[in-house]
């Protein structure tokens, strides 16, 4: 068993040795197929990506790949042949490149897409924590740990997510996770001022639960975490569906003014706009209720008293928009998180730039606690749904952290 001191020394020595060589990357993925997350994110380390007006090629080499499933259209073998790396049958072998010791400087875990079962909450059981645990096991056995990026939420289970973050703290390796939404372009290009006082915040999106709701929740979280005092954690959540969502609006549980503001940022209103191109004030006209036939509201009560709402409005729009009212600021702050078009999905280049930055510097550009908290908010909201939409106290979500000082979204 390694002592902590020995562990740190080994890590430091290995880091010093690795400084002259391009960093060696292992990719641990569910599947590697065209337009899967692993492909469009992993490829950024193989063929480069646009950054700040130039085609940027990371000074890093993908040396190994593990894919959990090889569906039709699998590209793992083709990529390995073309870019000169191996596909290994296990996570451990990928991290050791077939040898006996950890042989990479960073790990990209991309557990999105592929054929996995769903649980009773409707969550897809992607094996992210399982992949991660296998990485941690190698780190522990080999006495060295390297930075890990985990795509999207950490796990469908907050308990597992918490264990993942705990492992990164225990073994002192930097960790980054989450969605592209916090780091993509914004229209307009704004952030909430650090230390602002938020009266009310609202996010709107679409795409159903345990796929796109995570993205929307992280969009909301990356904004509200900038409030005075930083993130305090969440004390309760509630998920409402159907007419109860509109009723909650009538009762003032979320602001119609913020809803109008968020919708004013949308480029994708549906219904009459699709029919004949017209612009619409969906709230004032009442069309919103007609279009969003199965709305869902995710109510989040933070421990410092802030209340925020995320509305999934499938059928009414197809993009992700945020609005907030700040104390002492007359105009509502609102913006669209721009999800750039297929197939380039340049937002994933924005995200991989952050992973690359962490691999390069050993410092995560923003805290993994954001994604930990959002993983927990999502799971608890889905539990609320399962428990007849009850308000659930969430003492486990006392996740506190400070937001990054510098805005992290695409601006250059």
């Amino acid at each position, binding site marked *: 068993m390694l002592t902590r001191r020995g562990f740190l020394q080994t890590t430091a020595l290995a880091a010093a040795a690795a400084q002259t060589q391009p960093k060696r990357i292992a990719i641990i993925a569910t599947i590697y197929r065209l337009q899967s997350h692993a492909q469009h994110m992993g490829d950024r380390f193989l063929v480069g*990506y646009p950054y700040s007006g130039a085609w940027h090629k990371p000074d890093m080499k993908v040396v190994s790949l593990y894919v959990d499933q090889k569906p039709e259209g699998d590209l793992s073998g083709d990529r390995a042949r073309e870019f000169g790396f191996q596909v290994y049958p296990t996570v451990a072998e990928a991290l050791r490149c077939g040898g006996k010791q950890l042989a990479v400087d960073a790990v990209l875990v991309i557990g999105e897409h592929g054929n996995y079962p769903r649980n009773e909450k409707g969550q897809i059981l992607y094996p992210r924590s399982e992949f991660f645990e296998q990485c941690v096991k190698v780190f522990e056995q080999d006495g060295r740990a390297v930075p890990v990026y985990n795509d999207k939420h950490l796990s469908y289970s907050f308990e597992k997510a918490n264990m993942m973050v705990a492992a990164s703290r225990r073994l002192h390796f930097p960790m980054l996770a989450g969605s592209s939404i916090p780091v993509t372009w914004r229209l307009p290009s704004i952030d909430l001022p650090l230390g602002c006082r938020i009266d009310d915040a609202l996010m709107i999106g679409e795409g159903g639960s345990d796929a796109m709701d995570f993205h929307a929740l992280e969009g909301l979280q990356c904004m509200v975490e900038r409030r005075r005092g930083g993130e305090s954690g969440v004390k309760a959540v509630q998920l409402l569906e159907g007419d109860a969502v509109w009723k909650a609006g009538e009762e003032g549980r979320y602001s119609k003014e913020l809803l109008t503001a968020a919708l*004013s940022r949308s480029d*994708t209103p549906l219904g009459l706009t699709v029919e004949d191109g017209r612009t619409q004030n969906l709230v004032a006209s009442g069309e919103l209720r007609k279009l969003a036939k199965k709305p869902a509201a995710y109510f989040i009560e933070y421990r410092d008293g802030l209340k925020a709402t995320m509305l999934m409005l499938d059928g009414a729009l197809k993009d992700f928009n945020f609005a907030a009212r700040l104390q002492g600021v007359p105009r509502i702050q609102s913006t669209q998180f721009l999800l750039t078009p297929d197939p*380039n999905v340049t937002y994933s280049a924005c995200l991989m730039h952050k992973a690359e930055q962490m691999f390069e510097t050993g410092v995560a550009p923003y805290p993994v606690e954001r994604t930990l908290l959002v993983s927990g908010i999502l799971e608890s909201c889905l539990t609320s749904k399962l428990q007849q939409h009850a308000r659930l106290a969430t003492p486990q979500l006392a996740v506190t952290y400070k937001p990054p000082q510098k805005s992290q979204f695409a601006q250059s």
Partner: protein
Amino acid sequence: MSDPVRPKLAAIVTTCFKMSHAQHIVDRLLDGYGWNGTHHYPPMDLVSLYVNQVGANDLSKERAARHPAMKMCPTIAEALTLGTSKLAVDGVVIVGEHGNYPRNEKGQTKYPRWEFFEQMVKVFRDSGRSVPVFNDKHLSWNWEWARKMYDTSREMGFAFMAGSSLPVTWRTPSVEMPLGSRITEALCVCYGGVDSYDFHGLETIQCMVERRRGGETGVQWMQAYRGDKFWEALREGVWPRPLMDAALCRSHTLTPARAGFNHIFPSVEDMRRLVPDPVAYRYQHADGLKCTMLLMSGLVKDFNFAAYVDGGREPWSTQMYLPMPDGRTTLANFFSPLVNNFEKMYLTGKPAYPVERTLLTTGLTAAGVESLYRGQTRFDTPHLAIRYQPTKESTFWRT
């Protein structure tokens, strides 16, 4: 006299169907649009609409039925006089885009913008009064007529705005060319056809380069390259390849050069395969600045700008982002900043930005067409000695 606080507008359009320019503009005036974090209703009334071609897919009747305060008028004069003998509106919006109009031997669509303008001016003259005018896109396909439109606005002293959405839409990144910059080369990579999107590419460049030291000085010559001559010019380095590459790195719509990849930088061979009909307009301003507009349909579907600024070796670049309603979005919201800018003119009587920009890009579009028509030879443009100063304030969409 009408309420000065709430101007009355007449819209003069070629046709109004779903996704036509007239639909985008008229609907924003009638139904409002998202602006500054609310649904903005323009503080003015569209009181009359003239439609030159009412087709089977017409939407103007539906709009008029839903907005009875807007009268459909069979003639331009009636739309402007509202059935009286004199000009009875406070502003005119001309949208001469889309509709079935003949093309000439040079490939220019003969949209009747000049004809609309002339009929409008007759009402102005007969009424002894003129009001601010916005003209969508370029002024006219015919340079002489475009120049007359401009000269008439000056002679009669009415505020005149025109042009594309490209100068005023979002940018990714959201940056402005610093006023007074020294620019030696500027370039736009975009897509679309001749006498169509080339105008948008030229406005993309012009709204940036007009901010250079000394302001706009006019253009001396134009040289177009198409097909094989385009590839030859690229090989010979007629325009700076680093600027072209930088512009391509701003694109969100780069066609994957290889099967199995979603985003990969293309080689010249890839470009040749992907772009069957490339067009370049290369032109020189009177102060020596050289600009290049590249239409590369098949490679990109957006408008990307790059330039050498203030002696920097690294290109300065951005994308003029259009949320194009091609399936991913449903609203052509780049019309919102266009409408918002011209709203200001109707409220203040002053153009939000100089129409000379569009006079010049109108001339450049026609010059590009002319150079192509003359066998891709250099076309001298002494008539484009157009000087003007840009607005100090940025007018693109940032809020």
